[in-house]
């Protein structure tokens, strides 16, 4: 048997729905890690089943909780609106039809305290599993089953070697590496999955490269 018993009896989560509550919280929490800086406001644009049945499943509360950094099994999840107000983070919800996306998809538009904006799109694909499909216009398919690093970088020669060198210095084995670009020679987004836990200090080492704009570690 190649399925763990804890995939069947689990996850431990806040109800009522693994896709509409637990998955939603995970999506927003992941997006928060990706955008990292101080958040002032989040616009949640809901598609499909998230828009239609989200309310009855607490999808709204779960998304806000995730954006505050709460986990899917945190009992203060139901109280997230109040917690957000306390932290001075505002939010709004709207419906948006998106093309070629999963039924449970949300676009999260973060306005940061410095006025800049970040956009993350993701889907809750069942049983609490999620995938991130877009970060600031970079289209991808990131399922976060493994510890992941997301690097925004200038599309220059040698940068991949440089980054993989840093990974090796930290004794990390690269399981998968994927590069997405918006156009040639512009900015690229590099997604690296590893077999082992990634220490957050690696962000700093990677940022030292002059061709790197940002680096984010997401340990699942």
């Amino acid at each position: 048997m190649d399925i763990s018993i804890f995939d069947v009896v689990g996850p431990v989560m806040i109800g009522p729905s693994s896709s509409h509550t637990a998955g939603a919280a995970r999506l927003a929490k992941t997006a928060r890690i990706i955008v990292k800086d101080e958040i002032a406001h989040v616009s949640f644009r809901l598609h499909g089943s998230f828009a239609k049945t989200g309310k009855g499943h607490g999808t709204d509360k779960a998304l806000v909780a995730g954006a505050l950094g709460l986990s899917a099994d945190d009992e203060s999840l139901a109280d997230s609106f109040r917690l957000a107000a306390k932290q001075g983070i505002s939010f709004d919800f709207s419906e948006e039809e998106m093309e070629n996306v999963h039924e449970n998809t949300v676009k999260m538009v973060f306005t940061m305290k410095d006025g800049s904006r970040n956009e993350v799109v993701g889907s809750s694909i069942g049983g609490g599993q999620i995938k991130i499909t877009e970060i600031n216009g970079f289209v991808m398919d990131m399922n976060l089953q493994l510890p992941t690093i997301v690097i925004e970088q200038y599309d220059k020669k040698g940068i991949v070697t440089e980054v993989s060198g840093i990974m090796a210095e930290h004794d990390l084995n690269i399981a998968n590496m994927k590069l997405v670009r918006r156009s040639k020679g512009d900015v690229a987004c590099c997604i690296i999955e590893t077999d082992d836990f990634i220490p957050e200090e690696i962000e700093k080492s990677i940022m030292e490269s002059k061709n790197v704009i940002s680096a984010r570690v997401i340990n699942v």
Partner: protein
Amino acid sequence: MYNSIEELVRDAEERHLSLWQVILENECRLTQKTQKEVFKRLDERYEVMQKSAKKALEKPQESVGNLITGTAFQQQLYSNNRDSLCGFELNHIMAMALSASEVNASMGKICAAPTAGSCGILPAVLIGVSEKYWLDKRTTLQGLLTASGIGTIIVKNATVSGAEGGCQAECGVAAAMAAAAAVEMRNGSPRMAAHATAIALMNCMGLVCDPIAGLVQVPCAQRNASQAINAMLSADLALAGMKSVIPPDEVVEAMYKVGKKLPVEFKETALGGLAATPTGKKIKENLYQQA
């Protein structure tokens, strides 16, 4: 190595082990964890299960629509009544299954088993059996192992998703898992546990998923209560010696095929069954007007 209920039972029989021992061995090999680590994690999950099965017995839990709020509390009061038809133990088990459902609906903490919508069945049976026979924690966690192991086989060979297989795949599988656990907790043989699994699935073959207004409340809570009892009676039938005429793996396959063939209206879309009744639709309308 096993990929079916038959393979699991044979392995246990040949080596004179219980199902939970074979399942534990497999889990340790698969995840590279020690038996102690696996039991620790089981204990953590069982803690969450216990809390969810008890919380709403003490205090009704508010939820969107409040369709089931207070039902666990009421059932627990009734279970103390010596004149109840099913007796104290079964009524108490139903109350605990309702409690976990209420906690889930109210955005409380639960452990999916195998899903959030069916999270009351396994805890209610594990706790009910261990309370009745004064079983120690270790024996109860062994029951949880048996149930989880049966669950992995059904996940692999069929489905536990309501959207794919209807309620029989969620609450029905939870009952099948719990039935096997109850048999082993009562020292039944691996073969008996397998028959209990098959009988529980037989008893609810074709059960549709038709949540009113799309909420995980009605009939989910009632199905949690009734499938917990299904698990208990299936375990008793198997312990008495009843065999499933159809081999357990074939019953699992039949359940999967029935699930595939169910129209989409009966698979978590809230478009058929109770959800499509005049009253069901009215509840939905009222809910969204408030929103």
